């Protein structure tokens, strides 16, 4: 029952790997890299695609004539299995193409698919061939909107099962509701995603990026991933134009895609009418102003530079993309604390961003205010409201549970990493947080100029699992670990 969707997705994955091989191959003249190496890389990609395709076909054969009926339990299982399998087969190109160890390759693949963007490679430019670069960046794009969303959009005949799959991957207070049929919803989302990505590609080309870089960085931006083809991330281009384009598109990727869809018919005012969107802009603006002021006061930068670096870095952390233009580790403690706070926020619900999502932050804040009011007037029965709409009690409860699991996972991950490797508290905590929130770079030994290569294999596995938990928003994956799930 799981085998059929899994098999089909593996075939899609195989197609994507092969396409990245072709992309890297075609881009070689532009990049001017060693043609032999690229050709070899191309071959490796085809081998990986072949392996994935064979696994897909086998999986399909295993499910031949087995009816696909996806209930609630099956949906949770299918989504979890699919993500784990995607990570494993997504790692194959790294193992074959760059001779990485399995632990490294899995970390890189999960980091890509969950749009975390933390890497274990120190010299990316030399280490990877052009096709492999393309694949590494494409994993962000595939994982950004959600593999299952792509699947639901492409495959007919899933019916209500498709809805259960969709909701198991993207659980949250505000999902669905774009179109009555789930497949139309998925299609609309995919269409928006594709359009914005293409616009960014052109925009990046116009401000001076080569095509290969423009295509790959667009995929990385829209998935709010954070991988780059350069060692110095976006900062290496040292171009204000490129930074501004990427800044804008990072912010766009953090917006609820449902708003774009509604804006098509209802006009631009839908953005402003969303309380979550207003908070999103307020947070971005507020944090940028504070950090800029802080930089000016410590007079390390001029006005223009301060604004440029702070706004980019705030957007990169808030949308959980994790691109870097500045080493924010050298910033003052106030600025770093502020960025640390943003790690928890994330973008809007229904976007490709990770983190807790602003809608949840809003609900939790409202609950706190509500509790305070209840202390004064115990008989108050007003519901929690976000914007105009009252939030259902069940959603409030699951939001609180989510926040607790989020914090719990961050702490557990940090403890596990600290136990497995000799690292300081900042590094352990930030590595775990950056992975659970799908941001990428942290502070300490995993700061913006460092990478995750220092960790042992065991820690890398722990952190990969943290990334996956964060991306699937805990509940789907964790339900597999509850004994009653397996009882029939």
């Amino acid at each position: 029952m799981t085998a059929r969707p899994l098999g089909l997705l593996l075939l899609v994955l195989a197609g994507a790997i092969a396409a990245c091989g072709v992309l890297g191959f075609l881009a070689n003249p532009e990049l001017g890299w060693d043609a032999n190496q690229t050709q070899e890389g191309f071959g490796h990609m085809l081998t990986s695609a072949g392996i994935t395709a064979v696994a897909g076909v086998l999986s399909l054969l295993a499910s031949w004539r087995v009816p696909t009926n996806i209930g609630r339990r099956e949906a949770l299982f299918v989504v979890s299995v699919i993500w784990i399998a995607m990570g494993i087969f997504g790692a194959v190109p790294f193992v074959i193409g760059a001779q990485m160890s399995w632990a490294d390759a899995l970390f890189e693949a999960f980091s890509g698919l969950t749009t975390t963007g933390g890497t274990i490679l120190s010299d990316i430019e030399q280490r990877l061939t052009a096709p492999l670069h393309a694949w590494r960046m494409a994993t962000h794009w595939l994982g950004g909107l959600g593999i299952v969303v792509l699947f639901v959009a492409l495959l007919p005949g899933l019916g209500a099962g498709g809805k259960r799959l969709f909701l198991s991957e993207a659980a949250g207070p505000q999902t669905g509701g774009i179109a009555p049929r789930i497949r139309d919803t998925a299609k609309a989302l995919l269409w928006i995603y594709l359009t914005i990505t293409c616009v960014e590609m052109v925009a990046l080309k116009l401000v001076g990026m080569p095509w290969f870089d423009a295509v790959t960085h667009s995929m990385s931006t829209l998935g709010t991933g954070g991988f780059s083809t350069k060692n110095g991330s976006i900062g290496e281009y040292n171009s204000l134009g490129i930074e501004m384009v990427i800044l804008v598109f990072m912010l766009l990727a953090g917006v609820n895609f449902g708003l774009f869809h509604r804006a098509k018919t209802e006009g631009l005012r839908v953005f402003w009418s969303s309380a979550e969107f207003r908070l999103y802009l307020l947070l971005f603006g507020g944090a940028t102003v504070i950090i800029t002021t802080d930089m000016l006061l410590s007079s390390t930068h001029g006005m223009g530079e301060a604004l440029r670096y702070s706004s980019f870095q705030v957007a990169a952390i808030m949308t959980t993309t994790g691109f870097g233009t500045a080493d924010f580790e050298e910033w003052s403690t106030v600025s770093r604390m502020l960025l640390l706070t943003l790690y928890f926020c994330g973008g809007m619900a229904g976007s490709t961003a990770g983190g807790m999502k602003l809608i949840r932050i809003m609900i939790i804040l409202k609950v706190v205010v509500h509790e305070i009011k209840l202390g004064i007037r115990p008989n108050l029965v007003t519901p929690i409201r976000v914007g105009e709409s009252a939030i259902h009690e069940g959603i409030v409860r699951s939001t609180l549970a989510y926040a607790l699991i989020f914090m719990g996972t961050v702490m557990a991950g940090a403890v596990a990493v600290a136990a497995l490797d000799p690292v300081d508290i900042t590094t352990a905590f930030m590595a775990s947080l950056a992975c659970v929130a799908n941001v990428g770079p942290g502070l300490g030994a995993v700061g913006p100029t460092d990478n995750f290569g220092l960790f042992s294999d065991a820690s890398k596995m722990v952190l990969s699992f943290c990334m996956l938990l964060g991306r699937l928003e805990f509940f789907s994956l964790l339900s597999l670990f509850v004994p009653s799930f397996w009882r029939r």
Partner: protein
Amino acid sequence: MNVVVIGLGEVGRYVAEILASDKHEVLAVDLDKDRIDQVSERLDVATLHGYGANPRTLQLAGVDTADLVVCATHSDEVNLIAALASKRMGAGRTVARLKSGEYEDTAPEEPEQGVQYGMFGIDMVVNSHILIADEMFDIARSHGALDVHMFGNNRIELAEVKLPADSAVLGIPLHNLALPQHTRVGAVIREDKLFVPRGDDSLLADDRVYLFGHTGGMNEVEDLFVHGNSAQRVVIFGGNVIGEHLSRQLAKVDVDVTIIEPDKEKAKQLAQHLPGVNMVHGDGTDFDKLKEEEVGRADLYFAVTDDDENNMMSALLAKRLGTPRVCSVVYRPAYIEIYRQLGLDMAISPRQVAADHILRYARPAQIESLVHLGNGEAEVMEVVAAMDSPITVAPLCKLKIPSGISIGGVIGATGVEIANGETRIEPGDTVVVLALVAKHKTVSKLFKRGLF
């Protein structure tokens, strides 16, 4: 097609489910949050929580851009108002489900005044109770049929009969069976499994057989398979809308009708409106009362109250008293199977009847499924044969029609014909087809433009 379904009771949910599986965009509205959650979990439809006749709810549901609005809450008034308001707001077509007969009760000299004739601009009203009464009337008129369905504007009839152990047709392969002209065996249910028989299949005792024939000519056919007569003495348990309509129609054709109604006041009131009907006050689940009314001597017993359990017990008691044919209304579809196991072959579900009726109207496609047979394994549809479609190239006996599909009748320019081997379907003919649900695609291929 953009569909809004208001009210998620048995009918609403079923209609929403079928339309959603037909790939229409369905939005379901209900006042009950639990029902909303259930539906949104089980079906691929959007949902909205709210009161169906509230203009703001309707606006939110987008009835102004809907092609079809189905109002099927449990309240007639809400349904009518919701349908009216939707129509005003610009909905394409509106259907309102009704339960009481009041809104359709017109003076005979001015029949155009009822809601069923589009009085308020509602495109269709579906009254499941009246539909059931009609279906029960057809059963009463037939010679021993368990169920009767009409197609092609009432010109082709599909009757379901159960073969007794001494039926004249047992054990003879169908192609040797001397059937009256214009009769065709469409499907057989044997041991709870429905199949479409071929020429060399033969019938066994206790089979339930679906027969196609001309309306009006079916009694002769039924006589061959079972030996019954149309009912002369009928007892109805329940003086509600169904009982009232059924008894009125039966009384018109001089059938001796008795209604048993537990509520004395209601019985008295009803008796005044129903000349020629014997009205009795009493409980249909009271064995002595049924004996007293000589239910065992009736040809047909109908249990039509609003309560499933009472209907079931009453029907079983009538069976025990020796009534040859017993028919019951069943509201919860899951019960139908249990009725069968208890030996009650005739159970009609208002949900199925109303939903079939609404769907017949709602689906604009070339292929319309009109009625589901058995446990829903087979459907009967009316299909228009396209130019050069595979079905039109030769007489039926020369064509290789895939198994599981049976051509029932053809409505063409020259008239209505029940299919036989020599029948040749012309492009443009409307064909009544019985097919397994799994063969739906094959049927549409047969009737589509040249796919050889």
